């Protein structure tokens, strides 16, 4: 079974890209495969995972180890379970730096406190030696972020970094992520269900469905001028500003396809109102529908001069 297939996107230095899509659409899998951390019994079958010039799938164990947390760092969804309960928070940050050649052992030690201060942990000095259970959820996520940015990675992946947190601290965590990415000139991939968050934070948006990118483009374009039928429904299901804010309000008629019983043709066709015959048999390629905006849909392809050339992408 293929959970994630043929994902390819560009991200500029310092840019924040949002990945959205229903549960199970493969957002986390995409992020984890960038670090070659697919959980058992998952495997990377065939093909390449390219990050810049580097093929992650071909790296030796030592190369991938040096790559993880150093060039690409990841922040996970649940800060309550993502920190080791038996090690001091400060030590866990130090260890992230000590693992890589960028800083010496002494530098790693000296940088712990500044890092915790930088992620705005109150009274950081007193709390370096605390254990995770002595931290609140928000503070734990800050510690995770400190760990993530401690090696000044070029890319930071945040997988639903605020979903597990209290609404009151969500905004400050997001603000922190934005500020840090600016200061460190690091790119950020923000995986989220929260379209409002995407609208306010991301430069570009990637919409995923059934392990594929179905639409991609600048945030403005995606929100003002969504092309793919799935993106439409995604935006329509977005909570309005005047409603009480809830993260997982996305609900679209029908269910996302089961991995084992992936429909032929366009993976969205069982739920699509606009399907044509071709949708049932042939999967559409990702084609440019507007300058800088790509979508995977046959109906939209009609407007494109040369769909075959686009299909090469």
């Amino acid at each position: 079974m293929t959970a994630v297939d043929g994902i390819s996107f560009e991200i500029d230095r310092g840019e924040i890209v949002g990945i959205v899509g229903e549960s199970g659409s493969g957002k986390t899998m995409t992020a984890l495969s960038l670090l070659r951390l697919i959980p058992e019994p998952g495997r990377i079958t065939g093909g390449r995972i390219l990050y810049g010039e580097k093929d992650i799938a071909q790296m030796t164990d030592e190369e991938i180890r040096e790559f993880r947390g150093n060039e690409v760092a990841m922040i996970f969804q649940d800060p309550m379970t993502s920190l080791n309960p038996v090690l001091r928070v400060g030590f866990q940050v130090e260890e992230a730096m000590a693992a890589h050649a960028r800083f010496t052992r002494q530098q790693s030690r000296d940088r712990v406190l500044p890092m915790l201060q930088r992620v705005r942990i109150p009274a950081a000095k007193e709390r370096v030696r605390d254990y995770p259970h002595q931290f609140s959820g928000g503070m734990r996520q800050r510690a995770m972020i400190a760990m993530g940015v401690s090696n000044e990675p070029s890319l930071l992946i945040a997988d639903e970094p605020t979903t597990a947190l209290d609404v009151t601290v969500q905004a400050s965590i997001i603000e922190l992520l934005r500020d840090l990415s600016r200061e460190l000139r690091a790119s950020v991939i923000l995986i989220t269900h929260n379209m409002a968050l995407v609208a306010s934070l991301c430069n570009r948006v990637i919409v995923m469905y059934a392990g594929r990118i179905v639409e991609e483009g600048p945030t403005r374009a995606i929100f003002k001028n969504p092309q793919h039928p799935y993106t439409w429904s995604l935006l329509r299901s977005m909570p309005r500003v005047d409603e009480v804010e809830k993260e997982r309000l996305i609900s679209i008629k029908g269910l996302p396809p089961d991995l084992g019983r992936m429909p032929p043709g366009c993976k969205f066709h069982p739920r699509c109102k606009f399907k044509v015959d071709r949708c049932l048999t042939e999967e559409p390629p990702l084609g440019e529908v507007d300058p800088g905006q790509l979508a995977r849909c046959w109906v939209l392809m009609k407007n494109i001069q040369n769909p075959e050339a686009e299909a090469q992408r």
Partner: protein
Amino acid sequence: MRGTLLYIGQRLVLIAITTVLVSSIVFVLLHQIPGNAFLNETRTSPESLAADLRHYGLDKPLGTQYVNWVSGVLHGNLGESLVNRGVMITPLLVREASVSATVGFFALLVTVGLGLILGVIAALRQNTWADYVASSAAVVGYSVPSFVIGIFFLLIFGHYFFEWTQGTVFYNVGWGDWTQIPVPAIALGLPYASYVARLTRASMLETIRTDYVRTAWAKGLKARIVVLRHALRNALIPVVTILGPLITGIITGSVVIENIFGIPGLGKEFVTSILARDYNIVIGVFTFYAALVGLANLTVDVIYPALDPRIRY
């Protein structure tokens, strides 16, 4: 720190109470058994019997005997051997307890060391031949009681080794030489090692799938550090909880093993004194065992918070 000391103090008081209580029960029960150490075929005159009874205070009412005995125990005096007049029980048992403790300590090393190594290997190589070998060995080891292993070892090391090596390498039963430690220690520790291995395997399989171990990989830590510092450290916590009952098991097991291997420890004394109806020593051995089990469990409970910072006294 002060909390810990207070806790230890409280526990020591409880251990003292339990010890006196356990030996009181033994005291009362033993006095219900008809006959005594002086009643045997060699004794002829009722006068000398009366003299013996007077010497040991056995002519006094049971209540008075009990009060005298308890006040003796509280002063660390377990009285005098009934069979060998003039032999004081406390120094005798202290000497024997140190022998038992030596065997027990090495048995514990075998138990924990072997158990952890096998458990970790089985977990890391889950569902490979290494796992199957380790797991089956654990089942066999667990189902064979230590006295069977003891006799088996005696046969191999005491007899066959002698023949195979034409008398150069062999194990001689008894005590006094360090080379006499490993064989009984392994026989005593092996069944419990299987138990530790099974528990470690299950516990490791759980921790290597946790979010914080995924975080550790994502940080780019070396595999050795992820396994030992992050997975094993946490996997040890449930293993330590069974250390208490385990030590109790080793203490009971030592009664059999010491008799098989002719080791002059508490366990051997226990059987000898019962057969000789030297009830003063029997009560003394029980008193020692009660205190030992209590102290062993206390030691485990004191180690526990060092392993899991979420626990504090």
